[in-house]
């Protein structure tokens, strides 16, 4: 109890409070700007943390990243441009709600369930940290391989399109990750003598291209959408309590999946959102409503990405293993500030640990009022003319990618190229989200597969023998076979699955 009081004393200092408030606004702004990820927000904070006390330094990182992950939902919801990759999974859903005139409900869901998810993640960090970290620590490359495969399986679930085209798009994404020398053999592939291609295609410019620039391109070819009534947004939180009671299972599942994915090394908030959205659809009683502006998937995925954020700190604090890219940066800051990761942190510096928990909870609580302010500010851009917003977003696409890639103009070319690719793919029914998934997971699939084979001297048995590995393998095959099974059963029953998959419109479209 004494340490808890000391921890409060550490947190409630003027400099820590100022740091929290300032980084909250910073995180909200960066997250809401398309193309600027939460990771980038954190990375750019590192020089600032040089000048802060240890607790204030950690507080800025925690607050800014949590705010940015939530804030990424705002442009996704209002403009169908995800602010951060973590929002990409349910952008279409949130935008569909806005189109139905339910922008405040959609934003409210994102805010309310983000905050709840963040708090759930923090509780997991506090209560089950040692246990979860132990499991995650026994992950070798064999388990990582299955994890990555499971991630790729999600590609056919996230899109409302032909599964064949989804797989093709995912394979294109994988092919893109082959570019460069960051492969297990260290052999240059598809580089054609270019230094920039040697470095490979970074996910951020690709993401900015297919999600943001392609959206600007699409807007140019389409007429201005019917104005969303430019009324003031209603109460953001109204009805959220009702939704909380209506979808307890989805929320709990989102939190748990987010927590688990956060703990696993390398898989962060983006992955959590994809998996949770797909899972929500798979287990929903009304899967046909997904993609049409239905709150269910939004609740589950919105809770999930914020929950993963806190639990990503579990392996980071205990073993110095990053749960995601944000904690990778956080580990550097922890060392810099003398809070070296390790179990000893929990014993010798217990009050610092408790201070960290308090900051997490505090950050998620102030997210609600701050988030409402941000939503109110941001919602004005819906009323702003498209001819003013889109050009500015386009400049941000160029500059954001340029800045994340270390002021490299090659990233700007990448954005332009991926804008074109994304535009053409989207027009022809190839889901770009599946390609992005391929780009994010590609290196992990190849790396874990090749290194596993080296370790096992070419035998594939360890992929199935190790206990956790075998469970993950079974899940992967189940995910692979389930649609095939459902599809062939449907075929036998006179193609009725198609009707169930596509909703009430299906019978009319049958040729």
């Amino acid at each position, binding site marked *: 109890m004494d340490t808890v009081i000391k921890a409060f004393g550490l947190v409630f200092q003027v400099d820590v409070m100022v740091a929290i408030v300032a980084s909250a606004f910073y995180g909200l702004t960066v997250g809401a700007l398309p193309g600027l990820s939460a990771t980038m927000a954190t990375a750019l904070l590192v020089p600032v943390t040089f000048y802060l006390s240890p607790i204030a330094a950690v507080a800025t990182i925690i607050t800014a990243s949590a705010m940015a992950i939530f804030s990424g939902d705002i442009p996704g919801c209002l403009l169908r441009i995800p602010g951060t990759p973590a929002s990409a999974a349910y952008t279409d859903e949130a935008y569909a709600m806005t189109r139905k005139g339910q922008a405040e409900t959609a934003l409210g869901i994102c805010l309310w369930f983000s905050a709840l998810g963040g708090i759930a993640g923090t509780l997991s960090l506090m209560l089950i940290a040692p246990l979860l970290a132990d499991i995650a620590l026994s992950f070798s490359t064999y388990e990582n391989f299955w994890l990555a495969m499971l991630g790729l399986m999600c590609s056919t679930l996230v899109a409302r399109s032909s599964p064949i085209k989804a797989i093709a798009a995912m394979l294109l994404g994988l092919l893109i990750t082959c570019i460069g020398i960051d492969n297990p053999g260290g052999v240059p592939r598809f580089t054609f003598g270019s230094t920039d291609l040697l470095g490979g295609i970074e996910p951020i410019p690709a993401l900015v291209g297919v999600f943001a620039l392609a959206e600007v*391109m699409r807007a140019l070819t389409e007429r201005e959408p019917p104005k969303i009534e430019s009324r003031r947004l209603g109460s953001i939180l109204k009805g959220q309590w009702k939704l909380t009671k209506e979808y307890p299972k989805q929320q709990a599942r989102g939190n748990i999946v987010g927590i688990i994915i956060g703990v696993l090394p390398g898989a962060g908030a983006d992955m959590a959102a994809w998996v949770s959205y797909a899972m929500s659809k798979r287990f929903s009683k009304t899967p046909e409503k997904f993609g049409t502006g239905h709150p269910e998937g939004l609740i589950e995925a919105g809770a999930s990405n914020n929950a993963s954020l806190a639990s990503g700190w579990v392996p980071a604090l205990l073993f110095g293993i990053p749960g995601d890219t944000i904690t990778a940066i956080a580990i550097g800051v922890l060392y810099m500030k003398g809070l070296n990761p390790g179990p000893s942190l929990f014993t010798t510096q217990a009050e610092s640990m408790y201070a960290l928990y308090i900051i997490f909870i505090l950050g998620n609580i102030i997210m609600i009022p701050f988030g409402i302010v941000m939503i109110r500010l941001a919602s004005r851009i819906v009323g702003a003319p498209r001819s003013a917003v*889109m050009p500015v977003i386009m400049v941000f696409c160029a500059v954001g990618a340029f800045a994340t890639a270390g002021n490299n103009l090659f990233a700007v070319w990448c954005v332009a190229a991926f804008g074109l690719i994304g535009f053409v793919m989207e027009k022809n029914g190839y889901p770009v989200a599946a390609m992005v998934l391929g780009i994010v997971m590609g290196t992990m699939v190849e790396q874990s597969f090749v290194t596993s084979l080296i370790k096992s001297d070419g035998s594939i048995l360890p992929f199935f023998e190790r206990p956790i590995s075998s469970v993950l393998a079974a899940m992967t095959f189940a995910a692979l076979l389930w649609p095939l099974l459902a599809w062939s059963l449907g075929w036998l029953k006179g193609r009725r699955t198609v009707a169930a998959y596509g909703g009430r419109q299906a019978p009319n*479209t049958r040729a």
Partner: protein
Amino acid sequence: MLLSDKLTGGVVAVLGGLAFAYGSQLPPVPGQQIGPSAFPMVIGTGLVVCAGLIMFGIGHRFEEVAEADVASHSAPEELEPLPAWRNWLALLPPALLGFYALASETLGFLPTAATMVLVASLAFGARPKLAVPLALVAPFVINLIFLKLLRVPLPGGLLPFPW
């Protein structure tokens, strides 16, 4: 830019074929059972298989269903076709990004971004009364955010920012 499945499938097939061919040329790495050639070859094969299925129209039904679904949720006026030349306007943003990549080092961020905003804004049908002030103010604010808030120096060029 709506193309037929035969055409897009064909492009995918060619890409897959090229990936396979390129992959098969890569040298093995001593000590690794699976060399750098395997992954591109597997992907290439997968792409060719998918392309074949796409060209035969397998799975197209899901798209029709999804399209019909979207259509039933959109306002009717959005579905009216636009003149075909509007499609080519889509090439403008990538072209402007190319302009940024080529010109920003010499011209500097402010003039480059101002040009981009002006052109794009006019293409979106803005009146000069909106487009010109926007082109003057927006790059300035963006530069301020990046330089002061995020500490990312943008190309100075003719008009270096911290005056």
